[in-house]
């Protein structure tokens, strides 16, 4: 280091005293406002590290005197979001699902919230548009095994279907008629059932099929095969077939029926979410 008071001979400007290979650095001062701004930013940075979490310590960092934490900020925002929903959630808790359906504002909120819950919990079986698939009911249509009124849908979601660990679950079980009636009778009754909603290949099977039906099936499906929602017995005269339409699919279901299982959701999601889901499903177009 050389003396600070050295003045460059050529330019007459003081140097900073730094020299590299004979090249000296002239000390041209910066504009004062610039220098002041520079010092202010340094002071600001120092104050910032005191005010906010900054300095790394052994196990964590300094907390900062303002007590800021990004986690707390998220908590606050979530709390604010919850608070914003609070009135609606309280109203949903207090009202029955029918009342929610009848109230425009509550219904809109419940449909949005229920739609979100549906995307997480229900789409695995019922599909992202609630359109179902073979064995999994389409929730958009107007055909309901257990009833399409809001309260009935709520009951189904709460307790599930054939869900063994819920005592109030909805249960129906069609016997496997392969062990009860002959294969010929199965062919006949399948033709009869298919004829109720469409044409069949061999019309001569329909009449004997009707007799088989009257002897074995009317107890649950009704004498006009219109189904029975108390028992969860499907309407066999309509255009909607959970396990496929046509004589072959019907015969398979008569011989050894498939029985879908839906879990009970009340315990997992809570009453509010179940109500929201109910209103969402009810709003899909088939609600009664």
């Amino acid at each position: 280091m050389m003396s600070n008071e050295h003045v460059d001979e050529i330019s007459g400007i003081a140097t900073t005293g730094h020299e590299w290979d004979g090249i000296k650095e002239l000390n041209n001062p910066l504009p004062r406002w610039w220098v002041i701004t520079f010092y202010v930013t340094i002071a600001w940075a120092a104050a910032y590290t005191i005010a906010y979490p900054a300095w790394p310590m052994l196990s964590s960092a300094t907390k900062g005197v303002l007590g800021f934490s990004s986690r707390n900020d998220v908590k606050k925002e979530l709390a604010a979001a919850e608070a914003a929903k609070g009135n609606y959630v309280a109203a949903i808790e207090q009202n029955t699902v029918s009342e929610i359906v009848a109230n425009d504002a509550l219904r809109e909120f419940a449909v949005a919230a229920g739609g979100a819950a549906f995307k997480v919990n229900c789409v695995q079986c019922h599909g992202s548009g609630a359109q179902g698939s073979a064995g999994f009911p389409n929730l958009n249509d107007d055909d309901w095994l257990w009833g399409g009124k809001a309260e009935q849908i709520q009951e189904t979601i709460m307790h599930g279907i054939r869900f063994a660990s819920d005592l109030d679950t909805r249960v129906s079980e069609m016997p496997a008629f392969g062990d009860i009636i002959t294969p010929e009778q199965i062919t006949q009754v399948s033709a009869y059932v298919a004829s109720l909603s469409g044409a069949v290949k061999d019309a001569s099977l329909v009449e004997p099929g009707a007799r088989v039906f009257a002897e074995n099936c009317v107890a649950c499906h009704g004498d006009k095969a219109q189904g029975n929602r108390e028992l969860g017995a499907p309407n066999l005269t309509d255009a909607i077939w959970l396990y496929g339409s046509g004589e072959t699919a019907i015969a398979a279901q008569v011989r050894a029926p498939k029985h879908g299982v839906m879990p009970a959701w009340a315990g997992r999601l809570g009453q509010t979410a179940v109500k929201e889901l109910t209103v969402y499903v009810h709003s899909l177009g088939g609600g009664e």
Partner: protein
Amino acid sequence: MLEKTQVAPHAAEQVNSAKTRQPLYAARKKIFPKRASGRFRQFKWLVMAITLGIYYLTPWLRWDRGPFAPDQAVLLDLANRRFYFFFVEIWPQEFYYVAGLLMMAGIGLFLITSTVGRAWCGYTCPQTVWVDLFLVVERAIEGDRNARMKLDAGPWTMRKLVLRPTKHAIWLVIAAATGGSWIFYFADAPTLAGEVFRGIAAPVAYVTIAVLTATTYTIGGLMREQVCTYMCPWPRIQAAMLDENSLTVTYNDWRGEPRSRHTKKALAAGQPVGDCVDCNACVAVCPMGIDIRDGQQLECITCALCIDACDGVMEKLGRERGLISYATLSDYNANMALATAGSTTPVNPALIRTANGTFSDGLAHFHLRKIFRLRTFIYLGAWSAVGLALLISLLTRERLELNVLHDRNPQFVTLSDGSIRNGYTVKLLNMIPEPRTIVVTLQGFPGAEMSAVGIELPPARSFDTLVEPDRLKVLKVFVRQPAGQIEGIAQSFKFRIEDKAGLESAEYTATFNAPEIAR
């Protein structure tokens, strides 16, 4: 080997010599504009009163829109995303009206600049207007040019200790009023004013006032002409709009030169003498600190105060006004050619005057028809076209709109009776501040019926619904067609909406999907 004397020297110059190099940072030299008086100063007072009046008073104008909309004439309601301008109400999707107005402002600027030069800079630019206002305060407190220069150079006497803070305090009050007025454009002005003074307005209101107070004070009070010279892009852009037929503030050296402070002595010596007496009055009044006699320059905002100053001097001397005047480059060039006899010789004042001292008939004067030239017609045409398009669009725009979104998942639903149902999200836009009963109808779709979630009606071809004033209503509508009447996997039909009381209607062509098997 060459001899030393045989090496030819290069004609090179060390342009970056330390002895001649300018410093990179130069401190601003203060400008103390003298008060001007005259026609242009009068005009500028008028423009200042109008522009400041518009800015400060507009939010307080009322405009009755009925009980369902705010009664503030100009309101940017950001919270509800509505823009009110007297009889016009704009929704966010109609923002193209603002875009159109901005285009008109841009083209209008071209038009004005190509005819009368940088009139925007000189008269109406907020920077010019507020600097002018701050200078009024400065003159009132500290006196005119000479008094201010003396005060500035002098020591910190008691008087200076009183005057300086007073000036800055008044500037800050003006700046705060400027920032304060801005926020009234975004909320109901009387309500917000009450809230601001009681300290219960939203924080963003105070932050906005603080920021705009700071910028107004700094940019208008402290930085002044530096903003125009160093920060503003307009001078560069506007300069490109000028041509040889644009009026601009011009020093007419064809009659001013050779300038002389000792006219009589020079005349006695038989030297030619121009009208300019080199009194520097034009420099003293200039808020930009330039000398207009150097010719048209980037710093000149064409505020025309130098014209007033020079005209005053010319009148006192008994000479014609207009030594500095609004002139076009072509007139100026013609007169210069006359004054120099078409050569490169210095200006000879005798050449532009007749024997008895009046101006020669050969002098070119500005003629109004120079305003009407191809360039200005093109600007005017473009400006009018945009304006006309906006006007027609505004007069014919729909205040009842319909948007329909077809459900994609599922595309269709088979119902128990075999009929097919499609779902639609139907959005009804009631864009007037009155509640309206809207009739939704199906058009051209045999056998189809619809029902809407939340509307307790049996399936029908048509239903009514009430839409709140100035609001969008979203309906979930299900359309259902019996199995026997389905004609293909994608049928076209129309939703039609009508205002039950009025004449307005709207239509939307939608598609109805059905499975192949349902046919």
